[in-house]
């Protein structure tokens, strides 16, 4: 099950590999050493934050501003954590801590879209991303002069396309389509006008509130807890 999750991320390597390389090149060009470049990928493990922080760290900009930007870019993971804790209510404390450390948009999306309610699948997806991101950070840090610009190649499109390909199959009811449409429109209007990261959180909360409100007459979904009960009995 771990390897099933691990393999489920692999199509995304098409975007992850060039971006890990590009991040490393950006960081090295900004004056960070190989150790510092790699440390960000191991310890922070957040693509967009690493990209925005690397030039600032190299220039010795006030650390507080960098930490605040990083927080805004990543605060949406709070919502992912709640969602995973709801799908996998029987996780041990250790699993919660390790799962949280390696949690990303891609691992969360792949896990939710798969419909597999198994921690090992989720963790396999997490590790698949961590290993590829770090391996190619190292390659990029060592061979920084040979790496082409991923934006010029257009491989940055891999990320919205993969989220789209994960999103479409989970849209089943009319209300789910409606929430997706509303959130898209809200993102189009709000995200460019708010600090990066914050807009995604605001739209995420607004869209989810709309969904919860539109489904207020539906019976409470008990599918997850029933399956867990069945597993415990077995």
């Amino acid at each position, binding site marked *: 099950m771990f390897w099933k999750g691990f393999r489920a991320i692999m199509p*995304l390597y*098409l975007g992850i590999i060039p971006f890990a390389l590009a991040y490393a090149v950006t960081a090295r060009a900004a004056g960070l050493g190989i150790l510092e470049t790699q440390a960000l990928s191991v310890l*922070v493990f*957040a693509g967009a*934050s690493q990209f925005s922080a690397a030039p600032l*760290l190299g220039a010795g900009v006030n650390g*507080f501003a*960098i*930490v605040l930007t*990083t*927080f805004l870019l990543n605060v949406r*993971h*709070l*919502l*992912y*954590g*709640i*969602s*995973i*804790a*709801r799908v996998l209510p029987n*996780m041990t404390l250790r699993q*919660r801590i390790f799962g*949280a450390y390696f949690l990303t*948009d891609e691992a969360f999306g*792949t896990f*939710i879209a798969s419909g597999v309610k198994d921690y090992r699948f989720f963790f396999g997806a997490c590790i698949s991303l961590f290993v590829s991101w770090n391996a190619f950070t190292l390659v990029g840090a060592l061979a920084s002069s040979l790496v082409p610009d991923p934006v*010029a190649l*257009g491989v*940055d*499109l*891999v990320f*919205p*396309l993969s*989220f*789209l*390909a*994960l*999103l*479409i199959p989970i*849209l089943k009811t009319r209300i*789910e389509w409606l*929430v*997706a449409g509303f959130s*898209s429109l809200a*993102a*189009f209007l709000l*995200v460019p006008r708010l600090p990066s990261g914050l807009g995604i959180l605001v*739209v*995420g909360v*607004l*869209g*989810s*509130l709309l*969904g*919860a409100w539109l*489904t207020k007459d*539906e019976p*409470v*979904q008990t599918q997850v807890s029933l399956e867990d009960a069945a597993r415990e009995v077995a």
Partner: protein
Amino acid sequence: MNFWLTVLGMLAVTFGSRLAGMLLTTPLPPFWVRFVRFVPIAVFAALIIPSLEGTRGEGLPRVIGAVLCGVLAWRTKQLWIGLFAGMLGFWIMRNLPLM
């Protein structure tokens, strides 16, 4: 030393955001159970739309790639088919002389 202090701060806010939700063990009230069900839908829509146009004036080929990706993901429910078809469509469209 300032570098490592800043990295420690970045680690604290990323890991903190990731961990806070994962630690939730108390059952949620029904409204928030339904809220959580819509989180992936709303957040993914918010991640897709602003990054679709790109920064290089290739909005049209990128949107065509996205439509292709969406249709194939809908028909096949396979991430890799949607993703590869979308990227292929985008690369073909951006290299057509009329675009």
